């Protein structure tokens, strides 16, 4: 019923308008698909599970009270016992950094799989923990054994002989299917035996697009500038009550000049969220989408409006209303398709550029297709309104001179 030539011919006559509209659609596709993709990736990352039981966890940090040398290990361990007795508390462990909080206190290191230093060094984040910390965190033991009290080492006196690493680190060190248990890893002049591999988590310093490998060491420090209590509770709701009870206990135990602060671990996600970037991207995407809808719609409207007389002639020559509308829509679809194909190619290119420079995963074809379909729909819709109006043009209009 519709043949393409009558659609394409008028397009060829007004090349510039077509090129302009096509280019615009191409650029808009490129920009919006990439922006939406980055937003989506960030959003997914913030919403993805942390890998630990954050809903049940609390982390208390105690800074050394003024006037003392620091928090003695014996005091810290006594506190662990006392806090465990508080109703609602399931388990308490000591860790040397707040999980998921990148603010500070991060220690890093790098392992070698052999004593020769020429090998590739595998970087990781290190954490000294008490034996029960991994259970308290909610990390699953995938292979090997847990820490035992006899594994504990004391800073400046002895160093730990064993370590438990996350699966990501084990894979980085020994490859996908190799068993890491029992293997030795070397860090400068020290060597450790891997006794366990635990499930992956977002780590002590979650950062979008950067995977964190963690190595846990069974180590205590006898005098601590800071002591951290990781508390696991029965239920998420009981945490506020537990915070009060622990605060009261600490207040009583260490009188004046003391600092401590509590974090509900699932609330920390809010802190590492990169709000500035998110807001900027959202703002740009929103404005851009709005502006492009208005622009495309406006252009389609005016291009049809301009040709009212021509359309009137067509009507006078016997074109039905449906045929007229169909032709305008088809014409629009032809321009949009060309623009979209160029846009998809450009979007892939930009995505590749982002991937190279910022490690943002490449745009998936499905995502691109959805955006393209969306833009296609918007374009057709915006052409449909003037098309419907054009259908109403009376043939008598064509017979007039003006």
């Amino acid at each position, binding site marked *: 019923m519709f043949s393409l030539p009558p659609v394409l011919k008028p397009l060829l006559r007004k090349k510039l308008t077509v090129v302009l509209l096509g280019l615009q659609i191409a650029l808009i596709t490129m920009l919006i698909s990439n922006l939406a993709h980055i937003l989506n990736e960030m959003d997914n990352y913030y919403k993805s599970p942390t890998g630990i039981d954050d809903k049940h966890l609390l982390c208390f*940090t105690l800074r050394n009270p*003024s006037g003392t040398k620091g928090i003695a290990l014996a005091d810290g361990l006594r506190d662990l016992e006392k806090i465990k007795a508080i109703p609602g508390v399931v388990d308490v462990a000591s860790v040397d950094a707040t999980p998921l909080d990148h603010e500070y206190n991060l220690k890093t290191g790098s392992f070698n799989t052999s004593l020769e230093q020429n090998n590739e060094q595998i970087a990781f984040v290190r954490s000294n923990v008490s034996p029960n910390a991994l259970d308290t965190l909610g990390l699953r033991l995938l292979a090997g054994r847990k820490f035992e009290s006899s594994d504990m080492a004391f800073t400046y006196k002895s160093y730990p002989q064993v370590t438990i690493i996350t699966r990501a680190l084990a894979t980085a060190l020994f490859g996908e299917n190799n068993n890491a248990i029992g293997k030795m890893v070397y860090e400068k002049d020290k060597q450790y035996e891997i006794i366990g591999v635990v499930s992956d988590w977002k780590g002590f310093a979650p950062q979008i697009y950067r995977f964190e490998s963690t190595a846990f060491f069974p180590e205590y420090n006898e005098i601590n500038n800071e002591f951290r209590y990781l508390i696991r509770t029965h239920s998420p709701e009981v945490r506020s009550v537990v915070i009060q009870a622990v605060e009261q206990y600490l207040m009583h135990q260490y009188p004046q000049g003391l600092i401590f602060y509590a974090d509900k671990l699932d609330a920390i996600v809010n802190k590492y969220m990169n709000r500035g970037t998110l*807001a900027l991207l959202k*703002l740009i995407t929103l404005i851009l989408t709005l502006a492009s809808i208005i622009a495309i719609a406006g252009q389609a409207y005016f291009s049809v409006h301009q040709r009212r007389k021509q359309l009137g002639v067509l009507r006078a020559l016997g074109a039905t209303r449906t045929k007229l509308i169909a032709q305008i829509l088809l014409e629009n679809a032809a321009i949009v398709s060309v623009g979209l194909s160029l846009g998809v190619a450009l979007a892939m290119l930009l995505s590749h550029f982002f991937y190279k420079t910022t490690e943002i995963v490449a745009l998936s074809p499905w995502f691109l297709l959805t955006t393209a379909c969306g833009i296609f729909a918007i374009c057709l819709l915006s052409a449909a309104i003037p098309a419907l109006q054009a259908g109403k043009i009376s043939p008598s209009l064509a017979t007039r001179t003006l």
Partner: protein
Amino acid sequence: MFWYQYQLALRSIRKTPILSCVMIFILATGVAVTTICYTHYHHLKKNPLAHKDEHLFLLQTDSWDEKTQYERTPNHLPPLHSYRDSVALLASDIPLRKTAITKWGGSMHNPEIQQKAIFVRGNIVTRDFFAMFEREFIYGGAWNAIADQQFQNVIILNEDVNQKLFSGDNSIGKSVMYENIQYQVVGVTKKVQHSNPTYDIAQFRWPQPDAQFYIPFSVIKAAEFGAWTRYECPQDLRDYGSHWYQPRLINSCIWIGLWYEFAGEEQKHQFENFVRNYIQDQKKAGNYPRPIRFALSSIGDYMQLNQQGYDEDKTTIYIGFFTLLVCTLNFVALLLAKFMRALPESGVRRALGANRRVIFAQHLIESTTLGSIAAVLGMLMTFAGLLYLQLVWKSAPAPSSGLPVQDNTVLMEPDFYLMTVCVLTAIAASICAGLYPAWRACKVPAANYLKIQ
């Protein structure tokens, strides 16, 4: 003549109100997004101490180990020094002013009132620091020169901390407990929030929170403290003992920044000789194993050096540029539609004797007028956008530790320069966009339109 053209342009704009509004909105959007995307880059590249660039210098020396070169700065010189070198390099009398900078954090409270201590981070500096980096005092002033040599328990607080501990009153002469030592307050500084990290320029490119307190450099020997800064060690096989702190005072690990202010070139040359001699001297003791290399860079020099680093922040500028391109293309298309519709009028004007140049000018003036209105709207949109971004940034939850965080709102501050950029971009875009449609309009064959009439 211009006035007449301008009136014609206004009339034409008024004739198609919806089309004109759409065009203005589109261009304003493009300009606003571009300006917003450019803002943080503009602020990062600002140097608040540019007027001191001739006098104020950061010293870097190549104290790294023999085998590897230092990789984390653009000029491959470590940004910091060991305590051993710092003391020796500070001892020179040649410079007008000199300061060491390292960071420390801990608990602080006012011993006179019962309250939970606050968690603060600050700088360890010499008294010259305040003059060198133009820190203003609300109360008191810098400590005396003796405190830099012989440790005295003196401290300078920042406005915020003074507010928290002394409710903003004049606290000179009062004492505070910091960690386990009592200090006497000798000054309270005004809070500054630069978008440029100034004295941290070799370590950071983004703004850093203002230090909350300052303690004399001599404290390093008097008290044992774990510095809150980058602490890196070159490969050094000598044994410095196993104490947690004492080795830091004699080993080659770097953790102290050094800045110097010179009265003129002469002084700078003398000091360069001094540094060269010092490194030469140290080689006898087995330090400085690499070839003699050092640099005195002003903040401006260092920014130039780190140009590549700033270029990494340009991604948003590209996004902004593409947005502007899309919007300008759109503006062109709509302008073309608008001018084509008004062709009969131009035809009549041509027939009545207006030459092509006049018709061209008339259309260009029309597009520039639209551009100017878009510039004003774009400026308002930029203001609103930046304000929104600042609000979002401020709404981020503070860390539970109470420590100040990097304040990026300074990077989203609208200023005169940005607004000028915004307006000029809009007008330039509208002129560029108007060129082709105006050319098309002025080429109208007058006879064609007269015939139909």
